Every structure is written in structure tokens, then in C-alpha cells.
């Protein structure tokens, strides 16, 4: 699976610094933050659409990284993969708990500012295209119908549930579930074929 690890930042350097964090090295912890925080903040911001919540998630994630760096196994995943999973899972937890409180979506921030991220459908597909390009699987993924790619991108980059994707795309829930599934299957097959 290492062939599909995110390209930035320097994976070996990050893995080495994480190993030092596990031994309580604060300078290494700051280095990990310096190397990865902008990328991780970008990921959280896409899902949460609010700077204050993304900051909160980034903060909790790094506190957790300090405590759990010993759990990170370099043999199992690239360091950035692990860090992205920590941040995405926390961001998704926040989104889910907001949904449980019957808020249809996370509100705008308290100052009523515009949401930070604006994604037209094209923008999201471009982002997916760019990522699959970097993974050398763009051709393989582009063979998938646009709505399939679109629903996968909405679920991944914005952390939307099936029903939220359905609402965004004005499509039946059953269709969206099938599209997301096909998108995931396709991604797996493309990456395996590429490897």
C-alpha cells in the first residue's frame, strides 16, 4: 500500500520525527506539526467548512498524536496517511455529533461570516482528478461516470453522508449509495492495477 501514500511532506523525515515523538521529544513534535499542519488543516476545513471547528479538530488531533505516537506503526502506513486518518476521524466525529443534535448541517461561524470553502462541482472533480493523476490512476478513474466520481468526492472531501450526498446531487439515495460503492470499488481496482 505504500505506493499510494500521499506524496507530501517527506515521508521518511516525518516517520523519523514521529518515532521521536513517541519517546517524548517535543522538538520532534513541533517539527511534525510544522511539516503536516497546513495540509491537515486543509483536510479538516474541507469537511467542517468552519475555521474555528477545523482549528479545534487540529488541536485535538495533535494532542492525540502526542499521546498516541507510540501506536503509529511505520510498517503499516505512511505517516501522512496515519495523520490524515486521525484528523479525518475527529472531523467526522464532530460532523456526526452535530447531525445527531438534529442540526441539518454545521452552521456558519458565530460571526456569521461566509463559509470558508466554496466548491462548485467542477472544483471537487478537479481535486479528485488531480489526486488520481498524482497516483497515476486518473485514466482508470475517469472511466467512471461523472456522478459516481462526484458522489465519492463529496463523501470524501466534505465528509458527507449518503443522504447528504443525495441531497446535494438531487439524486435518489439508493442511486447515490450504489455510485459511492462503485467509486470505492473502482478506486481499489485502479490502485491495485497500478501497483
Amino acid at each position, binding site marked *: *500500500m505504500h505506493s*499510494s*501514500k*500521499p*506524496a*507530501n511532506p517527506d515521508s521518511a523525515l516525518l516517520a523519523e520525527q514521529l518515532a521521536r515523538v*513517541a*519517546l*517524548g521529544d*517535543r522538538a520532534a513534535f*513541533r517539527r511534525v*506539526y510544522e511539516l503536516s*499542519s*497546513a*495540509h491537515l*488543516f*486543509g*483536510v479538516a*476545513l474541507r469537511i467542517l467548512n468552519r*475555521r474555528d471547528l*477545523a*482549528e479545534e479538530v*487540529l*488541536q485535538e488531533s*495533535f*494532542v492525540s498524536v*502526542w*499521546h498516541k*505516537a*507510540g501506536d503509529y506503526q511505520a510498517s*503499516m*502506513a505512511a505517516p*501522512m*496517511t496515519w495523520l*490524515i*486518518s486521525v484528523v*479525518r476521524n475527529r472531523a*467526522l466525529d464532530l*460532523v*456526526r455529533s452535530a*447531525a445527531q443534535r438534529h442540526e441539518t448541517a454545521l452552521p456558519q461561524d458565530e460571526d456569521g461570516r461566509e463559509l470558508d470553502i466554496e466548491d462548485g462541482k467542477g472544483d471537487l472533480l478537479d*481535486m*479528485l482528478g*488531480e*489526486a488520481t493523476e*498524482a*497516483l497515476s490512476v486518473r485514466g482508470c478513474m475517469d472511466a467512471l461516470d461523472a456522478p459516481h466520481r462526484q458522489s*465519492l468526492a463529496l*463523501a*470524501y*472531501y466534505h*465528509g*458527507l*453522508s*449518503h443522504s447528504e450526498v443525495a441531497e446535494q446531487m438531487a439524486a435518489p439515495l439508493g442511486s447515490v449509495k450504489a455510485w*459511492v460503492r462503485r467509486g*470505492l470499488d473502482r*478506486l*481499489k481496482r485502479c*490502485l491495485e492495477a497500478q501497483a
Partner: protein
Amino acid sequence: MNYQRPELIDRLASEYALGTLRGPALRRFRRLMQQSPQIRQAVQQWETRLAALAVSVPPVAPPAKTLLAIEAQLGWATKPRASLWSWLRPAMVFSVGLVIGVGAVMLQPQRFVSLDALAQREQALPQSYVGLLTDREGRPTVLASSTRQGTRMTIKLLRPLDVPTGKVLQLWALPQDEAGKPLAAFPLGVVPATAKGGFEMAASAESLLSNVTRLGVTLQEAPAAAGDAPPASAEAFVLTGHCVKLW
């Protein structure tokens, strides 16, 4: 549903990693994930595949205050200080405040009173046995602790340890009688060469360590078994340190 089916595991793992698994299905899957290495592996594979899609997400610099907030939450907000504190503080924050008394007694006796007062204020230290082992240069290297009635010895490495392939780090208890005369050392367990870990002892800390005043670590071919002869001389120990009662 039959959660043994690999294709079902793969499907649920993909939806979990994507974030579309919600509600009762999510809770059920999290429970299963804790029990099954196979499921954890499937999730990990999907997290790796999907994390690759994040490569194109434009980075956004977080505000400078975020790192300060993280450090404050970790209890690092104050100025850097002597090296003793650099490892003592995080341990305290994470509730292993156990090191306070030991570190002070071992390295800076004159600070003992104030640190003890701090520990008293925390009111959070369980009755425990604590050992702080230093290397031959006197650098704190291994922190070993167990609650008084517990059987688990928790080990925290304070410095990286270079363990040659095929060797293990054997932790020994060095007891003494009431008159202070050394009694035969006995093996406690193997120190894991990871940052944090531990092992189960043969009996509770109280029954094993009540007359143990020192701990030692030898580098040897295989773990020692109960009844094995102790190291022939003090020279055999690569790490040694006091073992104290924290109550």
C-alpha cells in the same frame, strides 16, 4: 449479517474509512473493529487508499495560536527549563505523576519538598511502586511503575534503547532484608524496546516488591525464568535505579 465474510468486511471497512458509515451500523462496526485484527487491517488498507486522495487538498496554514493552544493543552505553556523537567512535565500531565517523587529523590533531593507539595496538591497519585533506571552515565532511561496491588508493570522509555538483534533487556528486582543486607535478585520481566509498553508480573507488585529497593536491567540472550541465577556482579547491569513506594 455474517461479519466473517471478507467481502462484507471490505465493504464496511471502506465505508467506515470514507465516513459514510453512520448510526447503529457505525457503532456495531467499531465494536467489531476492536475485536478483530482482520477488520482493523481492512480499515487500515482503506484509510491508506483514501488518504492518497487528500494529496490534492490545498494546504491552508492554521493560525499561529493553534500550536500554542496545543502546547498549552499538553501542559507545556511555561518556559523551557532544566532537562529533568523536559521529561517530567508531560508524564505528569498524562497522569503518570508518579515520577515526581522519584525524579526528585534521585536527581535533585533539594527540590523534593516543593515537588512533593505539588504532588499532594494534585491528589491523584495512586499507591504505586516506581523505579527510575539510569544508564551508566547517570541519564534517566527507563521508568517502571506498577500500582501497589496490580500485576502489570508499565514501562516507559525516556531515551531510545539500542537492543542488538537476538538480545533482550531483562528487568531484575534487587531486594534486601530489614537490616539492609542484599538478598538474591530475581527476574521481573522483559523491558519492551518500544517507547511505552509493559508486562505482566508473576504476582502483585506488593507481594514482589515490598522489600525491593533497587531495580536493574541486564542485556542477555533470552528472558530469565523464575529461579534463574541472578547476574554474577553489579557490572552486568546496563541500567540500575532505585525502586520506591509512592505512598
